[in-house]
Protein backbone atom coordinates (compact mmCIF):
# COMPACT_ATOMS: atom_id res chain seq x y z
CA UNK A 1 0.00 0.00 0.00
CA UNK A 2 2.73 2.43 0.99
CA UNK A 3 4.64 1.61 -2.17
CA UNK A 4 1.60 2.16 -4.34
CA UNK A 5 1.21 5.58 -2.81
CA UNK A 6 4.88 6.50 -3.07
CA UNK A 7 4.81 5.55 -6.68
CA UNK A 8 1.27 6.45 -7.61
CA UNK A 9 1.03 9.93 -6.25
CA UNK A 10 3.82 11.40 -8.40
CA UNK A 11 2.46 9.58 -11.42
CA UNK A 12 -1.03 10.97 -10.86
CA UNK A 13 0.36 14.47 -10.48
CA UNK A 14 2.46 14.01 -13.62
CA UNK A 15 -0.53 12.93 -15.67
CA UNK A 16 -2.49 15.88 -14.36
CA UNK A 17 0.36 18.18 -15.38
CA UNK A 18 0.35 16.78 -18.90
CA UNK A 19 -3.42 17.15 -18.95
CA UNK A 20 -3.11 20.75 -17.88
CA UNK A 21 -0.55 21.43 -20.60
CA UNK A 22 -2.70 19.73 -23.22
CA UNK A 23 -5.86 21.52 -22.15
CA UNK A 24 -4.28 24.95 -22.00
CA UNK A 25 -1.89 24.98 -24.96
CA UNK A 26 -2.55 22.07 -27.30
CA UNK A 27 -6.32 21.70 -27.54
CA UNK A 28 -7.96 24.00 -30.11
CA UNK A 29 -10.07 26.94 -29.01
CA UNK A 30 -13.78 26.28 -29.26
CA UNK A 31 -15.60 28.24 -31.93
CA UNK A 32 -18.54 29.81 -30.08
CA UNK A 33 -17.49 29.91 -26.46
CA UNK A 34 -13.82 30.69 -26.85
CA UNK A 35 -11.28 30.02 -24.16
CA UNK A 36 -13.87 29.60 -21.43
CA UNK A 37 -14.68 26.24 -23.00
CA UNK A 38 -11.32 24.94 -21.71
CA UNK A 39 -13.00 24.52 -18.33
CA UNK A 40 -14.60 21.52 -20.03
CA UNK A 41 -11.43 19.51 -19.43
CA UNK A 42 -11.89 19.85 -15.70
CA UNK A 43 -15.62 20.03 -15.49
CA UNK A 44 -16.44 16.81 -17.27
CA UNK A 45 -13.76 14.55 -15.74
CA UNK A 46 -14.54 15.63 -12.20
CA UNK A 47 -18.24 15.14 -12.79
CA UNK A 48 -17.57 11.68 -14.15
CA UNK A 49 -15.49 10.86 -11.07
CA UNK A 50 -18.26 12.30 -8.92
CA UNK A 51 -20.60 9.75 -10.45
CA UNK A 52 -18.11 6.90 -10.17
CA UNK A 53 -17.04 7.02 -6.54
CA UNK A 54 -20.54 6.73 -5.07
CA UNK A 55 -20.51 3.17 -6.41
CA UNK A 56 -17.32 2.46 -4.51
CA UNK A 57 -19.04 3.78 -1.43
CA UNK A 58 -22.10 1.62 -2.04
CA UNK A 59 -20.13 -1.57 -2.54
CA UNK A 60 -18.01 -0.91 0.53
CA UNK A 61 -21.13 -0.21 2.60
CA UNK A 62 -22.77 -3.44 1.53
CA UNK A 63 -19.60 -5.36 2.33
CA UNK A 64 -19.57 -3.72 5.72
CA UNK A 65 -23.17 -4.67 6.49
CA UNK A 66 -22.64 -8.21 5.30
CA UNK A 67 -19.48 -8.87 7.26
CA UNK A 68 -19.82 -6.75 10.38
CA UNK A 69 -20.73 -9.73 12.53
CA UNK A 70 -18.90 -12.56 10.82
CA UNK A 71 -15.65 -10.82 9.98
CA UNK A 72 -15.19 -7.60 11.95
CA UNK A 73 -11.68 -7.01 10.64
CA UNK A 74 -12.84 -6.96 7.03
CA UNK A 75 -15.85 -4.89 7.97
CA UNK A 76 -13.60 -2.26 9.50
CA UNK A 77 -11.58 -2.09 6.30
CA UNK A 78 -14.74 -1.84 4.23
CA UNK A 79 -15.95 0.99 6.39
CA UNK A 80 -12.71 2.85 5.90
CA UNK A 81 -13.16 2.52 2.14
CA UNK A 82 -16.72 3.73 2.42
CA UNK A 83 -15.70 6.80 4.37
CA UNK A 84 -12.81 7.58 2.04
CA UNK A 85 -14.86 7.23 -1.10
CA UNK A 86 -17.68 9.35 0.32
CA UNK A 87 -15.31 12.18 1.06
CA UNK A 88 -13.67 11.93 -2.33
CA UNK A 89 -17.09 11.89 -3.99
CA UNK A 90 -17.91 15.08 -2.22
CA UNK A 91 -14.67 16.67 -3.39
CA UNK A 92 -15.34 15.79 -7.02
CA UNK A 93 -18.97 16.76 -6.99
CA UNK A 94 -18.03 20.07 -5.40
CA UNK A 95 -15.44 20.69 -8.11
CA UNK A 96 -18.01 19.75 -10.72
CA UNK A 97 -20.55 22.16 -9.23
CA UNK A 98 -18.12 25.01 -8.93
CA UNK A 99 -16.61 24.59 -12.40
CA UNK A 100 -20.11 24.25 -13.80
CA UNK A 101 -21.21 27.46 -12.15
CA UNK A 102 -18.08 29.24 -13.30
CA UNK A 103 -18.86 28.08 -16.79
CA UNK A 104 -22.52 28.91 -16.57
CA UNK A 105 -22.09 32.55 -15.59
CA UNK A 106 -20.34 33.67 -18.81
CA UNK A 107 -22.17 31.25 -21.11
CA UNK A 108 -25.73 31.35 -19.79
CA UNK A 109 -25.49 34.63 -17.91
CA UNK A 110 -26.64 33.09 -14.61
CA UNK A 111 -24.96 31.11 -11.88
CA UNK A 112 -27.65 28.58 -11.40
CA UNK A 113 -30.77 27.19 -12.97
CA UNK A 114 -33.10 24.37 -11.99
CA UNK A 115 -32.09 22.18 -14.81
CA UNK A 116 -32.29 18.40 -14.76
CA UNK A 117 -28.60 17.70 -14.64
CA UNK A 118 -27.73 20.53 -12.32
CA UNK A 119 -30.48 19.58 -9.93
CA UNK A 120 -29.51 15.94 -9.80
CA UNK A 121 -25.90 16.85 -9.11
CA UNK A 122 -27.02 19.17 -6.35
CA UNK A 123 -29.10 16.41 -4.78
CA UNK A 124 -26.18 14.03 -4.98
CA UNK A 125 -24.08 16.61 -3.20
CA UNK A 126 -26.75 17.14 -0.53
CA UNK A 127 -27.04 13.44 0.09
CA UNK A 128 -23.34 12.97 0.60
CA UNK A 129 -23.14 15.96 2.89
CA UNK A 130 -25.90 14.40 4.96
CA UNK A 131 -23.97 11.12 4.93
CA UNK A 132 -20.90 12.79 6.39
CA UNK A 133 -22.97 14.77 8.88
CA UNK A 134 -24.57 11.56 10.07
CA UNK A 135 -21.15 10.12 10.62
CA UNK A 136 -20.21 13.10 12.75
CA UNK A 137 -23.43 13.24 14.72
CA UNK A 138 -23.36 9.64 15.84
CA UNK A 139 -21.07 8.17 18.42
CA UNK A 140 -19.66 4.82 19.31
CA UNK A 141 -20.32 1.58 17.52
CA UNK A 142 -23.45 2.66 15.70
CA UNK A 143 -21.86 5.19 13.34
CA UNK A 144 -20.70 2.68 10.80
CA UNK A 145 -23.91 0.69 10.58
CA UNK A 146 -26.14 3.73 10.31
CA UNK A 147 -23.92 5.32 7.70
CA UNK A 148 -23.88 2.14 5.64
CA UNK A 149 -27.66 2.03 5.69
CA UNK A 150 -27.89 5.65 4.58
CA UNK A 151 -25.46 4.89 1.79
CA UNK A 152 -27.83 2.26 0.41
CA UNK A 153 -30.67 4.77 0.52
CA UNK A 154 -28.52 7.25 -1.36
CA UNK A 155 -27.68 4.71 -4.04
CA UNK A 156 -31.35 3.94 -4.57
CA UNK A 157 -32.34 7.58 -4.49
CA UNK A 158 -29.91 9.05 -7.00
CA UNK A 159 -31.24 7.16 -10.04
CA UNK A 160 -34.74 8.20 -9.03
CA UNK A 161 -33.71 11.83 -8.87
CA UNK A 162 -32.08 11.42 -12.20
CA UNK A 163 -35.22 10.00 -13.77
CA UNK A 164 -37.68 12.32 -12.15
CA UNK A 165 -36.07 15.52 -13.29
CA UNK A 166 -35.85 14.32 -16.88
CA UNK A 167 -39.36 15.74 -17.08
CA UNK A 168 -38.20 19.11 -15.88
CA UNK A 169 -36.99 22.11 -17.84
CA UNK A 170 -33.44 21.60 -19.10
CA UNK A 171 -30.62 23.83 -20.21
CA UNK A 172 -27.45 21.77 -19.74
CA UNK A 173 -25.72 20.45 -22.90
CA UNK A 174 -26.90 17.05 -24.03
CA UNK A 175 -24.50 14.12 -23.75
CA UNK A 176 -21.53 14.53 -26.02
CA UNK A 177 -20.14 11.04 -25.76
CA UNK A 178 -22.01 7.95 -26.91
CA UNK A 179 -24.84 10.25 -27.89
CA UNK A 180 -25.30 8.59 -31.29
CA UNK A 181 -24.37 9.99 -34.69
CA UNK A 182 -23.72 13.71 -34.93
CA UNK A 183 -22.41 13.99 -31.42
CA UNK A 184 -18.86 13.85 -30.12
CA UNK A 185 -16.07 16.36 -29.82
CA UNK A 186 -13.40 17.57 -32.19
CA UNK A 187 -10.77 14.80 -32.37
CA UNK A 188 -8.12 17.41 -31.58
CA UNK A 189 -9.72 17.94 -28.22
CA UNK A 190 -9.60 14.25 -27.47
CA UNK A 191 -5.98 13.94 -26.17
CA UNK A 192 -6.43 16.76 -23.71
CA UNK A 193 -9.69 15.26 -22.52
CA UNK A 194 -8.28 11.74 -22.16
CA UNK A 195 -5.18 12.95 -20.31
CA UNK A 196 -7.38 14.81 -17.90
CA UNK A 197 -9.72 11.88 -17.36
CA UNK A 198 -6.76 9.63 -16.63
CA UNK A 199 -5.20 12.23 -14.40
CA UNK A 200 -8.29 12.84 -12.30
CA UNK A 201 -8.99 9.15 -12.01
CA UNK A 202 -5.46 8.48 -10.79
CA UNK A 203 -5.64 11.41 -8.41
CA UNK A 204 -9.00 10.29 -7.10
CA UNK A 205 -7.76 6.78 -6.47
CA UNK A 206 -4.72 8.13 -4.66
CA UNK A 207 -6.92 10.34 -2.53
CA UNK A 208 -9.10 7.40 -1.58
CA UNK A 209 -6.05 5.40 -0.68
CA UNK A 210 -4.53 8.16 1.40
CA UNK A 211 -7.77 8.71 3.24
CA UNK A 212 -8.20 4.97 3.67
CA UNK A 213 -4.76 4.67 5.19
CA UNK A 214 -5.47 7.51 7.55
CA UNK A 215 -8.73 5.99 8.68
CA UNK A 216 -7.09 2.59 9.19
CA UNK A 217 -4.42 4.26 11.30
CA UNK A 218 -7.08 5.89 13.39
CA UNK A 219 -8.87 2.59 13.87
CA UNK A 220 -5.60 0.98 14.85
CA UNK A 221 -4.71 3.66 17.36
CA UNK A 222 -8.17 3.38 18.85
CA UNK A 223 -7.84 -0.36 19.14
CA UNK A 224 -4.46 -0.09 20.77
CA UNK A 225 -5.51 2.49 23.30
CA UNK A 226 -8.49 0.28 24.08
CA UNK A 227 -6.25 -2.66 24.74
CA UNK A 228 -3.99 -0.50 26.86
CA UNK A 229 -6.83 0.70 28.95
CA UNK A 230 -7.92 -2.88 29.46
CA UNK A 231 -4.53 -3.74 30.83
CA UNK A 232 -4.08 -0.62 32.90
CA UNK A 233 -7.26 -0.73 34.94
CA UNK A 234 -10.55 1.00 34.95
CA UNK A 235 -9.72 4.64 35.51
CA UNK A 236 -7.49 5.64 32.66
CA UNK A 237 -6.46 9.14 31.74
CA UNK A 238 -7.04 9.86 28.09
Amino acid sequence: MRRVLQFGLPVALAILAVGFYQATYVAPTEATMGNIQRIFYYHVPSNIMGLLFPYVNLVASIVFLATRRSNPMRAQAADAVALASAEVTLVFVSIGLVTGMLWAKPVWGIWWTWDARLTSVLVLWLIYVSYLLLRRFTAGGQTQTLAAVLSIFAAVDVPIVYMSIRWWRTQHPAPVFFGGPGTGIDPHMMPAFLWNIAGWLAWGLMLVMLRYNLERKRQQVEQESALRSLEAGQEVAR
Partner: protein
Amino acid sequence: MSYARIVWAHLQKDLRLEWRSKDAINGMLFFSLLVVVLFSFAFDPTMAVSRQIAGGILWVALLFASTTALNQTWTRELRHQVLDAQRMAPSPASALFLAKVLANFLFVTMIQVVLGPLFIIFYNLHALGQGWLMALVLPLGTLALVVNGTFFAALSLRTRNREMLLPLILFPVSIPALLAMVQSTTGILTGEFDPGLWMRMLAGYDIIFLTLCLLLFETILNAE
Protein backbone atom coordinates in the same frame (compact mmCIF):
# COMPACT_ATOMS: atom_id res chain seq x y z
CA MET B 1 -52.00 -14.04 10.22
CA SER B 2 -49.57 -13.67 13.01
CA TYR B 3 -47.51 -10.84 11.48
CA ALA B 4 -50.61 -8.78 10.94
CA ARG B 5 -51.70 -9.36 14.52
CA ILE B 6 -48.42 -8.08 15.84
CA VAL B 7 -48.60 -5.01 13.63
CA TRP B 8 -52.08 -4.45 14.96
CA ALA B 9 -50.88 -4.75 18.55
CA HIS B 10 -48.24 -2.10 17.95
CA LEU B 11 -50.63 0.14 16.07
CA GLN B 12 -53.29 -0.10 18.70
CA LYS B 13 -50.77 0.84 21.33
CA ASP B 14 -49.59 3.87 19.37
CA LEU B 15 -53.10 5.09 18.74
CA ARG B 16 -53.98 4.65 22.37
CA LEU B 17 -50.91 6.54 23.51
CA GLU B 18 -51.61 9.37 21.13
CA TRP B 19 -55.17 9.45 22.25
CA ARG B 20 -54.10 9.76 25.87
CA SER B 21 -51.50 12.45 25.29
CA LYS B 22 -52.33 14.10 21.96
CA ASP B 23 -48.75 15.29 21.62
CA ALA B 24 -48.25 14.88 17.93
CA ILE B 25 -51.65 15.89 16.64
CA ASN B 26 -51.53 19.06 18.58
CA GLY B 27 -48.23 20.36 17.31
CA MET B 28 -49.03 19.39 13.77
CA LEU B 29 -52.34 21.14 13.80
CA PHE B 30 -50.90 24.33 15.16
CA PHE B 31 -48.16 24.68 12.65
CA SER B 32 -50.11 23.66 9.60
CA LEU B 33 -52.75 26.22 10.42
CA LEU B 34 -50.05 28.79 10.84
CA VAL B 35 -48.65 27.99 7.44
CA VAL B 36 -51.94 28.18 5.61
CA VAL B 37 -52.84 31.49 7.15
CA LEU B 38 -49.36 32.86 6.70
CA PHE B 39 -49.56 32.14 3.04
CA SER B 40 -52.92 33.62 2.54
CA PHE B 41 -51.52 36.81 4.00
CA ALA B 42 -48.37 36.59 1.98
CA PHE B 43 -50.05 36.06 -1.24
CA ASP B 44 -53.36 37.41 -2.28
CA PRO B 45 -55.25 34.17 -2.83
CA THR B 46 -57.59 35.75 -5.29
CA MET B 47 -54.88 36.09 -7.89
CA ALA B 48 -54.90 33.76 -10.83
CA VAL B 49 -51.43 32.38 -10.11
CA SER B 50 -52.50 31.12 -6.73
CA ARG B 51 -53.33 27.89 -8.40
CA GLN B 52 -49.76 27.50 -9.50
CA ILE B 53 -48.20 27.75 -6.08
CA ALA B 54 -50.98 26.05 -4.14
CA GLY B 55 -49.40 22.65 -4.73
CA GLY B 56 -46.16 23.81 -3.19
CA ILE B 57 -47.85 25.40 -0.22
CA LEU B 58 -49.90 22.35 0.54
CA TRP B 59 -46.93 20.04 0.55
CA VAL B 60 -44.69 22.34 2.49
CA ALA B 61 -47.39 22.60 5.14
CA LEU B 62 -47.59 18.84 5.29
CA LEU B 63 -43.85 18.33 5.38
CA PHE B 64 -43.81 20.74 8.23
CA ALA B 65 -46.59 19.00 10.05
CA SER B 66 -45.15 15.58 9.63
CA THR B 67 -41.66 16.48 10.80
CA THR B 68 -43.24 17.55 14.06
CA ALA B 69 -45.08 14.27 14.34
CA LEU B 70 -42.14 12.17 13.28
CA ASN B 71 -39.87 13.61 15.90
CA GLN B 72 -42.39 12.59 18.52
CA THR B 73 -42.97 9.17 17.16
CA TRP B 74 -39.92 7.47 18.61
CA THR B 75 -39.33 9.74 21.56
CA ARG B 76 -42.17 7.96 23.25
CA GLU B 77 -40.32 4.66 22.90
CA LEU B 78 -37.15 6.13 24.31
CA ARG B 79 -38.72 7.25 27.56
CA HIS B 80 -38.19 4.73 30.32
CA GLN B 81 -36.15 2.66 27.88
CA VAL B 82 -39.19 1.02 26.39
CA LEU B 83 -37.16 0.65 23.23
CA ASP B 84 -34.99 -1.90 25.01
CA ALA B 85 -38.07 -3.97 25.65
CA GLN B 86 -38.94 -3.71 21.97
CA ARG B 87 -35.48 -4.83 21.00
CA MET B 88 -35.73 -7.84 23.25
CA ALA B 89 -39.15 -8.96 22.11
CA PRO B 90 -39.15 -11.95 19.78
CA SER B 91 -41.65 -10.35 17.39
CA PRO B 92 -40.19 -9.09 14.09
CA ALA B 93 -38.77 -5.59 14.21
CA SER B 94 -40.28 -4.67 10.88
CA ALA B 95 -43.75 -5.06 12.39
CA LEU B 96 -42.92 -2.30 14.81
CA PHE B 97 -41.81 -0.12 11.94
CA LEU B 98 -44.85 -0.86 9.85
CA ALA B 99 -47.16 -0.01 12.71
CA LYS B 100 -45.41 3.27 13.31
CA VAL B 101 -45.69 4.12 9.63
CA LEU B 102 -49.39 3.36 9.73
CA ALA B 103 -49.90 5.42 12.86
CA ASN B 104 -48.05 8.39 11.45
CA PHE B 105 -49.94 8.01 8.22
CA LEU B 106 -53.18 8.21 10.13
CA PHE B 107 -52.10 11.30 12.05
CA VAL B 108 -50.97 13.16 8.98
CA THR B 109 -54.11 12.17 7.14
CA MET B 110 -56.13 13.50 10.03
CA ILE B 111 -54.34 16.80 9.67
CA GLN B 112 -55.07 16.77 5.99
CA VAL B 113 -58.72 16.34 6.64
CA VAL B 114 -58.62 19.53 8.68
CA LEU B 115 -56.23 21.36 6.46
CA GLY B 116 -57.72 20.44 3.10
CA PRO B 117 -61.08 22.21 3.39
CA LEU B 118 -59.44 25.25 4.97
CA PHE B 119 -57.05 25.37 2.13
CA ILE B 120 -59.73 25.14 -0.48
CA ILE B 121 -61.68 27.90 1.19
CA PHE B 122 -58.76 30.25 1.69
CA TYR B 123 -57.47 29.82 -1.82
CA ASN B 124 -60.83 29.48 -3.41
CA LEU B 125 -59.53 26.49 -5.28
CA HIS B 126 -61.31 24.36 -7.74
CA ALA B 127 -59.21 22.05 -9.77
CA LEU B 128 -59.09 22.66 -13.48
CA GLY B 129 -57.78 19.14 -14.02
CA GLN B 130 -59.31 15.98 -12.61
CA GLY B 131 -59.85 16.91 -9.00
CA TRP B 132 -60.60 13.41 -7.82
CA LEU B 133 -57.02 12.44 -8.56
CA MET B 134 -56.06 14.38 -5.43
CA ALA B 135 -57.60 11.53 -3.48
CA LEU B 136 -54.76 9.42 -4.85
CA VAL B 137 -51.97 11.95 -4.76
CA LEU B 138 -52.50 12.90 -1.14
CA PRO B 139 -52.18 9.41 0.37
CA LEU B 140 -49.34 8.48 -1.96
CA GLY B 141 -47.43 11.60 -1.06
CA THR B 142 -48.15 11.27 2.63
CA LEU B 143 -46.96 7.70 2.58
CA ALA B 144 -43.71 8.73 0.91
CA LEU B 145 -43.08 11.35 3.58
CA VAL B 146 -44.04 9.12 6.42
CA VAL B 147 -42.14 5.99 5.39
CA ASN B 148 -38.84 7.73 5.05
CA GLY B 149 -39.51 10.03 7.94
CA THR B 150 -40.25 7.19 10.33
CA PHE B 151 -37.21 5.30 9.20
CA PHE B 152 -34.84 8.19 9.55
CA ALA B 153 -36.32 9.22 12.83
CA ALA B 154 -35.48 5.73 14.07
CA LEU B 155 -32.05 5.99 12.56
CA SER B 156 -31.27 9.21 14.36
CA LEU B 157 -32.88 8.00 17.54
CA ARG B 158 -29.85 7.24 19.59
CA THR B 159 -27.61 9.93 18.21
CA ARG B 160 -26.76 13.24 19.74
CA ASN B 161 -29.09 15.96 18.53
CA ARG B 162 -31.64 13.71 17.09
CA GLU B 163 -34.24 16.37 16.37
CA MET B 164 -31.70 18.27 14.36
CA LEU B 165 -30.45 15.28 12.45
CA LEU B 166 -33.83 14.10 11.22
CA PRO B 167 -34.49 16.84 8.66
CA LEU B 168 -30.86 16.80 7.61
CA ILE B 169 -30.97 13.25 6.39
CA LEU B 170 -34.66 13.08 5.55
CA PHE B 171 -34.93 16.04 3.19
CA PRO B 172 -32.23 15.20 0.64
CA VAL B 173 -33.49 11.67 0.20
CA SER B 174 -37.09 12.85 -0.05
CA ILE B 175 -36.53 15.39 -2.78
CA PRO B 176 -37.75 13.17 -5.64
CA ALA B 177 -40.93 12.41 -3.73
CA LEU B 178 -41.51 16.04 -2.91
CA LEU B 179 -40.96 16.95 -6.52
CA ALA B 180 -43.43 14.37 -7.71
CA MET B 181 -46.01 15.44 -5.13
CA VAL B 182 -45.76 19.09 -6.00
CA GLN B 183 -45.77 18.47 -9.71
CA SER B 184 -48.73 16.15 -9.76
CA THR B 185 -50.70 18.48 -7.51
CA THR B 186 -49.89 21.41 -9.73
CA GLY B 187 -50.81 19.35 -12.77
CA ILE B 188 -54.18 18.55 -11.26
CA LEU B 189 -54.91 22.07 -10.08
CA THR B 190 -53.91 23.89 -13.21
CA GLY B 191 -54.93 21.24 -15.69
CA GLU B 192 -51.96 22.29 -17.79
CA PHE B 193 -50.23 18.94 -17.95
CA ASP B 194 -50.94 15.32 -17.20
CA PRO B 195 -50.04 14.31 -13.65
CA GLY B 196 -50.07 10.61 -14.51
CA LEU B 197 -46.35 10.23 -14.98
CA TRP B 198 -45.56 11.96 -11.71
CA MET B 199 -48.13 9.90 -9.88
CA ARG B 200 -46.72 6.67 -11.16
CA MET B 201 -43.33 7.83 -10.10
CA LEU B 202 -44.67 8.62 -6.63
CA ALA B 203 -46.18 5.16 -6.37
CA GLY B 204 -42.90 3.61 -7.47
CA TYR B 205 -41.04 5.64 -4.89
CA ASP B 206 -43.42 4.48 -2.17
CA ILE B 207 -43.00 0.84 -3.04
CA ILE B 208 -39.22 0.94 -3.36
CA PHE B 209 -38.65 2.80 -0.15
CA LEU B 210 -41.17 0.91 1.92
CA THR B 211 -39.48 -2.33 0.92
CA LEU B 212 -36.04 -0.96 1.61
CA CYS B 213 -37.08 0.36 5.01
CA LEU B 214 -38.73 -2.87 6.05
CA LEU B 215 -35.63 -4.79 5.09
CA LEU B 216 -33.17 -2.50 6.81
CA PHE B 217 -35.12 -1.60 9.92
CA GLU B 218 -33.89 -4.51 11.99
CA THR B 219 -30.33 -3.45 11.24
CA ILE B 220 -30.73 0.08 12.48
CA LEU B 221 -32.82 -0.90 15.48
CA ASN B 222 -30.02 -3.09 16.71
CA ALA B 223 -27.16 -0.93 15.51
CA GLU B 224 -25.29 -0.11 18.62
